[in-house]
């Protein structure tokens, strides 16, 4: 029998030498005259074990990692193709405890299938959601999604079903579906993992959204930092088109839907949905006033469903298994699962998809294993560059939209970045202002000018110049940014700044009481 080995082509794995490992395996197999089939899968998301390869055996897929090309000859000697023991053997991939503990719905296939093969996608339940959607009317599709409780995974958490219904009910000669694949939040990589590891699920999700809204054309607005995602998506789109899953008559539904990838040009603000539409129209990424919302008047003035990669990639399982199935996961108004992305100074960084409600402490310690440096955890930032910093004492907060918001934080796109005790939180606060200044679209003064002023004021506080006057100034500035910014870039930058100030006043050269003065 031909031996089968999986080596990830996920860019995280590539960044650690997965291509070199793949080449070493092919070379060694040729040298030993072995007939070997090498498949490039996505990543399972256990990045501390990457590059992690898997050999297909009678018992299942046996994993080895983290590997380097140098390990490969010894693996062959040990008999890894039959799943034999070796110091780097991790046992059956599915049984790796931190994978087994997860609830993988959106990521059900990532790391398992061959992302370049539509047949493999179909063999793993792919396109079952679209098949069901094609038998429903648009109203029934919107209802199923509403029932599931699915909220936007891009940051704002808006109910997906409502957006679909709005676009559906708005009459127009042409409608669009736009996938927000800008994934600008630092500390996040779930969109990328889907696009590289299971691109068909995104295409299927966009097709379902199109069928519901009555859209005929879709764009995936992809950040330029993701060239491997672009390749994987374009290859998948070509296959889907060749096999009738895209085109003038999608799965014989009589409905047309086509799709293309548009690559951005390095702009965080283009992740904001209206700036993204401007950018797709070829213009500068300037945020638009709302209303009208894009579902009513979006791309080229037409009704446009615009959703994050994860939101769209979750539609297939909701349609295939039903809204009630998805809704069964989660807590309160946070239904379903959240692909949590754990990064920064942490021993086991990776993708952990869990039902909402797991606490930050469990994520950082049980999953993450504490810091990579072995030093104490000092701060955890949740939700990307616009998210709050949480100190040790607040880590028991459940991962859930409302619970995080109640503590002046946000869930954002689900990123969690861990810092050890060497971090200087005044520097992080300054960085938040600096990032806002760099990425501001410039439309409103509090964001454009306020962020630069904010850096200067923080510098003065840290230099112990006129501390109390400058503290007041910083708070006023943050107030203005919060209240008078058109979008969340200016409006939420105060979250990381004020949380750093509140929980870590010492880093600003302040006494504990100075910062609590509101």
């Amino acid at each position, binding site marked *: 029998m031909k031996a089968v080995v999986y080596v990830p082509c996920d860019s995280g794995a590539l*960044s650690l030498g997965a291509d070199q490992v793949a080449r070493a395996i092919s070379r060694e197999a040729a040298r030993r005259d072995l007939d070997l089939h090498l498949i490039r899968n996505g990543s399972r998301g256990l990045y501390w074990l990457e590059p992690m390869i898997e050999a297909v055996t009678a018992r299942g897929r046996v994993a080895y990692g983290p590997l380097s090309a140098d390990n490969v000859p010894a693996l062959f000697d040990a008999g890894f193709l039959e799943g034999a023991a070796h110091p780097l053997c991790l046992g059956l991939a599915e049984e790796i405890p931190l994978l087994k503990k997860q609830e993988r719905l959106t990521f059900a296939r990532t790391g398992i299938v061959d992302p370049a093969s539509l047949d493999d996608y179909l063999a793993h339940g792919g396109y079952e959601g679209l098949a069901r959607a094609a038998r429903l009317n648009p109203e029934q599709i919107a209802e199923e999604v509403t029932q599931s409780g699915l909220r936007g995974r891009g940051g704002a958490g808006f109910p997906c079903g409502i957006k679909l219904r709005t676009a559906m009910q708005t009459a127009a000669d042409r409608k669009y579906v736009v996938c927000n694949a800008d994934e600008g939040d630092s500390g996040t990589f779930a969109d990328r993992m889907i696009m590289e590891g299971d691109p068909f699920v995104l295409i299927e999700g966009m097709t379902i959204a199109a069928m519901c809204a009555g859209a005929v054309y879709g764009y995936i607005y992809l950040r330029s930092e993701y060239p491997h995602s672009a390749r994987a998506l374009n290859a998948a789109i070509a296959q889907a088109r060749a096999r009738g899953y895209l085109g003038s008559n999608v799965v014989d539904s009589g409905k047309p839907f086509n799709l293309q990838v548009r690559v951005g040009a390095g702009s965080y603000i283009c992740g904001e949905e209206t700036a993204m539409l401007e950018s797709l129209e070829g*213009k500068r990424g300037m945020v638009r006033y709302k209303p009208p919302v894009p579902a009513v008047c979006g791309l080229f003035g037409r009704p446009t469903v615009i959703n994050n990669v994860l939101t769209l990639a979750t539609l297939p399982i909701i349609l295939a298994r039903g809204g009630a199935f998805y809704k069964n996961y989660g807590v309160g108004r946070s239904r379903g699962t959240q692909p949590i992305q754990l990064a920064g100074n942490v021993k086991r960084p990776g993708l952990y998809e869990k039902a909402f409600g797991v606490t930050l402490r469990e994520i950082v310690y049980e999953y993450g294993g504490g810091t990579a440096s072995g030093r104490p955890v000092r701060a955890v930032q949740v939700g990307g560059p616009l998210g709050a910093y949480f100190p040790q004492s607040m880590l028991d907060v459940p991962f859930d939209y409302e619970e995080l918001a109640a503590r002046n934080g946000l869930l954002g796109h689900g990123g969690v970045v861990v810092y050890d005790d060497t971090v200087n939180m005044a520097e992080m606060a300054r960085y938040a202002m600096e990032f806002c200044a760099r990425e501001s679209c410039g439309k409103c003064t509090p964001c454009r000018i306020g962020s630069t002023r904010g850096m200067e004021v923080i510098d003065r506080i840290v230099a112990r110049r006129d501390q109390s006057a400058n503290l007041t100034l910083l708070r006023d500035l943050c107030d203005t940014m919060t209240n008078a910014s058109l979008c969340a870039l200016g409006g939420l930058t105060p979250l990381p700044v004020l949380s750093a100030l509140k929980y870590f006043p010492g880093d600003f050269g302040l006494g504990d009481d100075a910062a609590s003065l509101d």
Partner: protein
Amino acid sequence: MGSNGWNQSAILDIARQLRDEPGALLLILRRIQDELGWIPEQSVPLIADVLNLSRAEVHGVATFYHDFRHHPPGRHVIRLCRAESCQAMGAVALARHLEDRLGIGFGQTTADGRFTLDAVYCLGNCACSPALTIDGDIHGRVTPGRLDDLMAAVEERRS
């Protein structure tokens, strides 16, 4: 050929080829950046002409996006991630190491034209921080020592 190795007809070809696409301007600039490695100032009037836009409009878009270079890059381009997750794992030290070694700051090119140093804010490789790309290839868990090896390797590849 222009004085800096840019090619007027290449730019016109790109502009004419993409002019009828929806949102053509950004597509054209993106393609020029990808093919030439930068966007020569002289391409602005050419594109404006093909798309029937004002020069100011074209210039406005060309200068809005961080990816677009307005000077030719060095032979090798290093893009270091300076965002939060990478900062938590030593990106600040890597930044200093690069600035010291190359004798330039971010956004600059060495006098001998060998290296351009750029900052980037997240490569989506945060689970393997700190991360950077050299000539487009991504690297994770980078240490100053490993960075030196990587730089030596790209220079060798050239000669």
